[in-house]
């Protein structure tokens, strides 16, 4: 990424990024604009040693608003590469277990990644449609009970089966490297995805479906930069369902509100701001008759991040952002929050535990499955 002198000049006179940044509101010493200034104007090399570099959520709320078109998350990502080389490392959540799981997958190992699927539905070992499960089944094992991430792939498989599709799933699939990439470890990202490409090519798939927005953006946006054009179509499951579900002859039960309040949708940063997918999930929720859908004040491009990214730097700041979001949903009259990202579901569910909030947090696939007739 190249930032021109003109962009820097505009940048120094602005500050929309810092004004928009959810972290800046919680941590007064964090300012995207100041970080650009220190790095590009002052040539201050201590930026690579500063801890703020790891505080950024890379949620892209700044970059979608930036009038000078500076991609601040990408700027942060590149500098994290440098910081890592200098020994400036982030504070990992869950003792670094999830990073260790990803690193182990970069090796020639035998996984039991699809064990859950035997009870969940039907699948194939080769075919046109590959369902990239992602790491959600691992999250279910590592994280505290009740966060429900394993329900995401189970629901997707069941939904696809109901539509008459038996997707390919594979034990040899690897982590998509999203977290490694955004933690400044591009080499790990490359190693993992060399495996993934081999596995997907071997299945003969023409379309790869992602239920996780992180895997989706990695394949859609980052993989072509490194590996060239991919020999298959990359679709998020919400895109695929919004296209295929209305004509699949499936009907939905009317929503039974029973005093549980409205239903709202949390836009994941990767799926929304980064990939521009705002409408398909809303169209899918709209397929359910009598759905009391409400929008939170911050929605679509202005949506709020679920508070942490890449399993690192989970702090009081993250908790504050998460609780603020739960309050926002409650104030909007929602009793149910639907997300399209396993991590949004995990983070909001985790934040809600031991609080007075009693919102039902679920993902769009589990929700649709429950409403099917």
């Amino acid at each position, binding site marked *: 990424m190249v930032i021109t002198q003109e962009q820097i000049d505009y940048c120094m006179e602005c500050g929309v990024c810092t004004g928009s940044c959810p972290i800046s509101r919680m941590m007064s010493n964090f300012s995207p604009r100041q970080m650009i200034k220190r790095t590009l104007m002052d040539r201050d090399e201590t930026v690579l040693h500063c801890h703020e570099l790891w505080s950024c959520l890379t949620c892209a709320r700044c970059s979608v608003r930036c009038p000078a078109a500076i991609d601040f998350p990408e700027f942060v990502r590149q500098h994290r590469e440098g910081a890592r080389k200098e020994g400036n490392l982030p504070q990992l959540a*869950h*003792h*670094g*277990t999830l990073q*260790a*799981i990803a*690193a*182990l997958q970069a090796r020639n190992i035998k996984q039991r990644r699809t064990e859950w699927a035997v009870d969940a539905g039907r699948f194939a070992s080769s075919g046109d449609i590959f369902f990239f499960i992602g790491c959600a089944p691992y999250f279910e094992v*590592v994280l505290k009970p009740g966060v429900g991430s394993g329900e995401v792939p189970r629901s997707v498989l069941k939904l696809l089966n109901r539509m008459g599709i038996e997707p390919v799933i594979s034990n040899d699939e690897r982590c998509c490297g999203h977290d490694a990439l955004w933690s400044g470890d591009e080499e790990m990202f490359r190693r993992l995805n060399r495996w993934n490409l081999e596995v997907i090519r071997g299945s003969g798939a023409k379309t790869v479906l992602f239920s996780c927005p992180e895997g989706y953006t990695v394949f859609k946006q980052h993989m072509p930069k490194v590996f060239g054009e991919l020999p298959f179509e990359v679709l998020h499951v919400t895109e695929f369902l919004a296209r295929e579900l209305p004509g699949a002859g499936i009907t939905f039960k009317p929503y039974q509100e029973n005093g549980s309040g409205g239903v709202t949708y949390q836009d994941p940063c990767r799926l929304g701001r980064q990939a521009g997918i705002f409408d398909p999930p809303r169209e899918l929720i709209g397929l359910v008759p009598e759905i009391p859908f409400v929008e939170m004040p911050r929605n679509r491009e202005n949506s709020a991040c679920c508070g942490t990214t890449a399993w690192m730097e989970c702090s009081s700041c993250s908790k504050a952002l998460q609780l603020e979001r739960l309050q926002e949903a409650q104030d909007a009259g929602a009793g149910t929050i639907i997300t399209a990202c396993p991590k949004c579901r995990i983070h909001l569910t985790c934040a809600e535990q031991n609080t007075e909030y009693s919102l039902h947090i679920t993902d769009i696939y589990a929700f649709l499955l429950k409403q099917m007739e």
Partner: protein
Amino acid sequence: MSESYEPKIVAFTCNWCAYAGADLAGVSRMQYPPNVRLIRLMCTGRINHAFLLNAFLSGMDGVMVSG
């Protein structure tokens, strides 16, 4: 796998039982294979799953938790 394959095993041992047992084996001059590397913990409650995974990442073939 060749017949001479020797796995490397890391054992996380509790100070008060398993480590004391290994220590007793040592002072009693009992022989045991050098494949196992002991790491003493004050309690196996100190274990978290990252220890186990990082052992594999560091090249261990097996992990034993004893205590």
